[in-house]
């Protein structure tokens, strides 16, 4: 009888203590001081992990889509375009951003806070390129001049156009590949490279070229136009 009573008493004790702990936890979580302390970059990183990391990689590198943790890249794209892409995603590409297709559905303020957090975390001391990032601001490309650029700068790694065999970096003239990536995606890849994968950016080093040889904005447009033309040739 008395042991049963003791058991019940101790059980009650445990329950009371647990409730107290839980209540304390609740109180501190809603403590206004706590919510203020969370810094913007931290919130941005959590949002990044939840909504972008799957494709752009944990911590902004080593994802299947381009690396975003790249100060020069962020500086070149600029806050306004980043906000635009984050709001709407990339039309015609696989990037949902925080737009309607995503699970995020951020409002403009959340987007702006997120981009500022991103710039704060990964964009410090970034230097913008001297040539435009945006396809819209770049000169129109010429496919036949692009062919020469491709042969000189790209072929050694990516193989001759429409070459089906094994190449060091895989084909970029595969028509299926070209149907999945946007012109901006191609331009960004050539401008900034994919450093984590060994793809050099606009300033090289490209094999068979002088070390200080850089591609011009025009040459990049040409090579993109050339890549597009290989796909249409095939069909």
């Amino acid at each position, binding site marked *: 009888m008395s042991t049963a009573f003791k058991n019940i008493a101790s059980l009650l004790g445990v329950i009371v203590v647990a409730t107290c702990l839980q209540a304390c936890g609740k109180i501190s979580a809603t403590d206004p001081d706590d919510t203020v302390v969370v810094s913007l970059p931290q919130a941005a990183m959590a949002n990044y992990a939840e909504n972008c990391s*799957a*494709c752009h990689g944990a911590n902004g590198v080593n994802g299947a889509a381009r690396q975003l943790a790249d100060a020069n890249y962020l500086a070149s794209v600029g806050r306004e375009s980043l906000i635009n892409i984050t709001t709407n995603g990339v039309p015609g590409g696989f990037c949902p951003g925080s737009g309607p297709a995503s*699970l995020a559905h951020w409002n403009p303020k959340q987007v702006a806070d997120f981009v500022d957090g991103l710039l704060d975390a990964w964009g410090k001391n970034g230097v913008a390129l001297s040539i435009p990032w945006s396809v819209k601001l770049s000169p129109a490309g010429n496919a036949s001049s692009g062919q020469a650029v491709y042969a000189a700068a790209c072929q050694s790694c990516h193989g001759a156009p429409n070459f089906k065999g094994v*190449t060091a970096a895989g084909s970029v003239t*595969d028509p*299926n590949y070209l*149907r999945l*990536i946007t012109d901006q995606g191609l331009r960004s890849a050539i401008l900034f490279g994919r450093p984590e994968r060994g*793809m050099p950016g606009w300033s090289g080093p490209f094999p068979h070229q002088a070390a200080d040889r850089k591609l011009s904005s025009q040459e990049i447009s040409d090579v993109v136009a050339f890549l597009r033309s290989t796909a249409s040739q095939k069909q």
Partner: protein
Amino acid sequence: MFRNIKMVGTKMIGGLLGWTESRSGAIGFVQPILMHRVPRDAKWWYVFGSASLMFFSIQVVTGILLATMYAPSAAEAYSSLQYIDQQVPFGWMLRALHAWSSNAMILMVVIHMSQVFLHASFKFPRELMWMVGVLLLFCTLALAFTGQIMRWDQDAYWGLGIGAAIVDRVPMLGNQMRNVMLGGPYIGGATLSRFFALHVFVLPGLTIALIGAHMALILKNGISEMPKPGMVVDPKTYVVEYEERIKKNGVPFMPDAAQHDMVFCGLMLIIVGVLAAYLGPVGPNGIPNPTIIDANPRPDYAFLWIFTAMALMPPQIETAVLLIAPPIVVMLLLGLPLISNRGERAPSRRPGAVLAYVLIATALGTLTWLGVVSAWSPVMDAWTSLPTPVKYLVGRTPLEMQGALVMQHSQCRNCHSLGGEGGLRGPNLDNVGSRKSWDQLVRQVQQGGGNMPAYGKNLSSAETTAVVAFMTTLRNAGAPESTIPGAMERQSSPDQAPTSVASEAGK
């Protein structure tokens, strides 16, 4: 003066009734139905059948109204539902009533059936009533399934996809049956027209005919009494004895027994009305496109247990179970009164039957509950929050990298895990490249199977090619260790893609 008018009035009504009766025999027809004698103890236990009938009538009325506004075409179904919800005054309430009374009807039918089973009311001479009742159960479920398709949303799409995948497994005939069901190899406009015809013409017609038969049999055989231990059913003497007892102790259905029915039906009506008003219509949940999953797609409650059972079953036995189990279940249900049509009726004297009931009810309940909370339902945010494991990206070609993006973007990872992260609904894909050939992978993605939706035309040929190219690189043993630049030993050329993929998906 006043009295005169009243008299004339009564006379006129009487005359009108007499005129109608002499020409139609309607009263002569209805009277025995209303006045037939039922056992005195037939009280609250017997209200569920009537409630099922009431909910069916509500379905018919609300259904006819909905059919006047609903556009049964793939392009317009979704927007016509939104129109009903938002523009038609109380249109949302109409949809809500239709949906909730359908759920209520299934519940009532199941309770009614449980009561009949536990009280062994299906024994002699009511075997046929039970069989017709079982057919009515199937009609009710079929109406619910086809009704859920009418929403033409995510849930509908996935419900159909799984249904089609089941049909597809029938040996030899599977493909044709799937084409008949869907009106083509994929879910499309023709599918909706087919299911609309089933939902508003074929199934309701069949149900009404079966309800008629069920009622006629009730009149013929009478309602069973409450079972008493020791009171055994013997086909030789039962009918005479029953009739004697009913003559002595029975009461006319109207008004004695009907009172209980009316009170209960009224109560149910209020509950369903309140539910409908508070919870609103069901769906539509997002446009049907497996590449945009915004809601957690699952079938309606009545079918949730099937979904869970499929998720739990080891894939090796799935086909066998799917093809063999349904006919056995149907035969058992239909044949039950033939297996045992005499003897004790009281549950206390039929422990085996009670045990079987408890087991089946627990199993269905547990499966349904698991379906609600299951870990193998998709992880909805996996596609944006779980990075493709870095080791699966090393040394991949640009096309394969795009394939990895398709896998994220098309939300495959909501159901499939990579590197231990992702949904558990489908098998993990870490090693899928060594399990399946290029052709098999293409088929799996385009036609689905098991619990996987058919992506069909929702992925372009380039997307299908890319994701399959990526999957062929997923092999435990062969994960290339090369780092770029320098060594790319293996590059699957795009020509590996069978030309049929491109032509099929491009159509």
